[in-house]
């Protein structure tokens, strides 16, 4: 059974950070907006405080085939349902640095962004004022120019104090971690309780997930969202140079044609290129042959320790309490490898789950595990380095020979860390152990390389031969087809991507409004 739905001005595929922000902005501009979300509807009341229940928020859509020595961890890093991956993100919102935008120009390697930090800065400033970020800009000696944070910094608990002593002893700097969590009530949203349930989704709206701000804003302005709507292709005119809408399957399997004047793909870094590749013989908007290329994932370098004093490791935010970016600028000045990384220090931790302290040392079992679980409950400490992943063309999304129930090929993702990125991760681990020893940890250890965040795959650039979109996310080949989200990043930097995703999405939305007539 096939249906044609009423035409809308703009159809957005995906309700995550980028999709919900663009929906809000375009609705506010008076456009008729429809979001198609592949996963189920979730409300704040569905965000149960449990690390096991948290797994429902992660990707459960069409399987992704992961290959390569450092797989990207699609399920853990993606979301499924209202709010996408931003619903379970930890709200760590540092900015990219000036150097991140011009790696190729400055170092002759990797890629350049088609914009500078200066061009993106106003959007960072506007977003942080709108949704609230807690932090202390003056303490962040590494921070590029920008407006002060609208909220005071988040509190530091015992774990933070103890690990901070190690940084201080080694002459390293620390600052409050900039978090999109309210340290005070802000614009009708309450302050955080520092309970460490961020991964399970924040139902209080203290954390700026899409349910806290942009989705309600979109709905207030008339924006609509349809859940369990699986988009299978992007429709174009006969010449293939103009998008006319999308085809999707509703929950009951009905195939629906949704026409729109403008199409935005905001379905995250894997599903966006999958849809483009599956929508044309050689892929849609793929004149460059780069749709799917340059997939990146930050390597998480984890450091754990046990400390003599009690650490209150259950208090705080899952993202951490403090920040260090001493190893960020001057990417060519690292002891090992090339690139940038930052430490997110003293993360709130639960006993179970991949990020739980119980999983931190898999060699323990039996009575030793029991002893560890009891002792670590009060004496555990941890921090994570977000390590830059250099873009490699061979790290890419391609179409699998397997197909989903609607006949669309699955995405296959190959990812292998660049040798210099891997070395950078090794160096971060070593530094972390040194810091924990300086903090007088009684025991220290590292975790394995964990993939954190997914970026690239539909990169932006000035040259249509070397990128998929322009700096606004507009596909070089199709004026009214936009990409939004971290898939646009030509380089990953060494900071969490969600703040930048918001800034780029706001810049794109304003561009769409300004140029609506010529685009459509």
């Amino acid at each position: 059974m096939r249906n044609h739905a009423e035409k809308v001005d703009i159809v957005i595929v995906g309700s995550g950070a980028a999709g919900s922000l663009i929906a809000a902005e375009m609705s506010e501009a008076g456009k008729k907006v429809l979001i198609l979300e592949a996963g189920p509807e979730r409300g704040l009341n569905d965000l149960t405080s449990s690390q096991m229940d948290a797994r429902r928020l992660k990707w459960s859509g069409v399987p992704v085939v992961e290959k390569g020595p450092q797989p990207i961890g699609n399920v853990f890093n993606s979301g499924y349902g209202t709010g996408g991956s931003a619903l379970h993100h930890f709200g760590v919102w540092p900015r990219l640095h000036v150097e991140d935008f011009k790696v190729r120009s400055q170092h002759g390697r990797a890629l350049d962004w088609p914009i500078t930090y200066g061009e993106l800065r106003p959007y960072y400033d506007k977003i942080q004022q709108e949704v609230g970020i807690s932090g202390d800009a003056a303490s962040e000696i590494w921070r590029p120019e920008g407006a002060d944070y609208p909220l005071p910094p988040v509190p530091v608990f015992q774990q933070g104090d103890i690990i901070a002593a190690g940084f201080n002893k080694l002459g390293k700097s620390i600052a409050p971690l900039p978090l999109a969590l309210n340290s005070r009530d802000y614009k009708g949203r309450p302050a955080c309780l520092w309970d460490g349930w961020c991964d399970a989704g924040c139902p209080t709206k203290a954390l700026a997930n899409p349910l806290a701000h942009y989705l309600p804003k979109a709905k207030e302005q008339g924006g609509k969202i349809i859940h369990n709507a699986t988009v299978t292709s992007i429709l174009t005119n006969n010449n293939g140079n103009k998008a006319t809408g999308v085809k999707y399957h509703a929950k009951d399997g009905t195939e629906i044609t949704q026409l729109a004047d403008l199409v935005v793909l905001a379905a995250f870094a894997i599903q966006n290129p999958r849809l483009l590749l599956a929508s044309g013989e050689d892929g849609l908007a793929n004149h460059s042959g780069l749709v799917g290329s340059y997939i990146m994932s930050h390597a998480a370098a984890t450091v754990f320790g046990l400390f003599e004093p009690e650490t209150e490791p259950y208090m705080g935010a899952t993202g951490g309490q403090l920040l260090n970016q001493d190893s960020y600028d001057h990417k060519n000045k690292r002891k090992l490898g090339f690139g940038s990384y930052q430490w997110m220090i003293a993360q709130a931790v639960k006993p179970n789950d991949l990020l739980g302290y119980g999983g931190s040392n898999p060699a323990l079992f039996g009575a030793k595990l029991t002893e560890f679980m009891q002792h670590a409950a009060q004496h555990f400490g941890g921090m994570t380095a977000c390590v830059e992943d250099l873009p490699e063309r061979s790290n890419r999304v391609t179409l699998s020979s397997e197909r989903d129930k609607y006949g669309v090929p699955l995405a296959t993702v190959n990812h292998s860390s660049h040798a210099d990125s891997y070395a950078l991760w090794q160096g971060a681990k070593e530094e972390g152990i040194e810091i924990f020893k300086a903090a007088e940890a009684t025991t220290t250890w590292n975790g394995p390389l964990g993939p954190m965040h997914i970026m690239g795959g539909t990169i932006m650039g000035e040259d249509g031969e070397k990128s998929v979109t322009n700096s606004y996310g507009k596909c070089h080949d199709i004026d009214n087809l936009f990409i939004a989200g971290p898939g646009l990043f030509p380089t990953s930097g060494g900071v969490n991507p969600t703040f930048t995703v918001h800034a780029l999405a706001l810049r794109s939305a304003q561009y769409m409004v300004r140029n609506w007539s010529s685009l459509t």
Partner: protein
Amino acid sequence: MKNKQPPDPIREKKSLKISRRHFSQAGGAFTLAFLLGDRNINLTPAQAKTQKIPLQLLNPHQAALIDLLGDSIAPGAKAAGLSHYIDHQLSSTAPDNLLILKYLRVNPPFEGFYSSALMAFDKAINQRFAKNPAELTSDQMAEFITIMMTENPEGWSSAPPAPFFYFVLRSDAIDVTYGTMAAFDSLDIPYMAHIEPDHEWADRS
């Protein structure tokens, strides 16, 4: 600016000090809807085990192997209802599945993962000790686990790698043993739920 201490405003934790047991006193338990006859009843996995709720997918031998190995890895997992938890989750749809395996690049359905690994475990134990797994001494089980966490023991075949299965079952065992409100309480960790996990032990038929 080097060695700069965090500014005073962030040192306000004293007012946030929490009495550890405060938040978990009224706590419920991690319950799942188990099928009993034609009714669904909400029980903790431990209650499901005690009440001998019929297993849906695992056979009794597989359940016994899961409990044996899981409890050897994380003592308390058997009583916490590890085999009932895994059985329940294996019969869940993908979006509702809570098994940690979904994070680890294994696509559902997951039944084959566990059944093949348990068969390999059984076979490798027999090959090494000429015993059934249940007959091993605790030292023998520890010896075997020490091997399987780093390599495939002799006789381990047609199954996921032993170290991977060890990691997965260990995580499952930690989930049921330490991931509940009651377990947090026993560890003296305040649970601080915004929304408690389903805590009613009620007949929802």
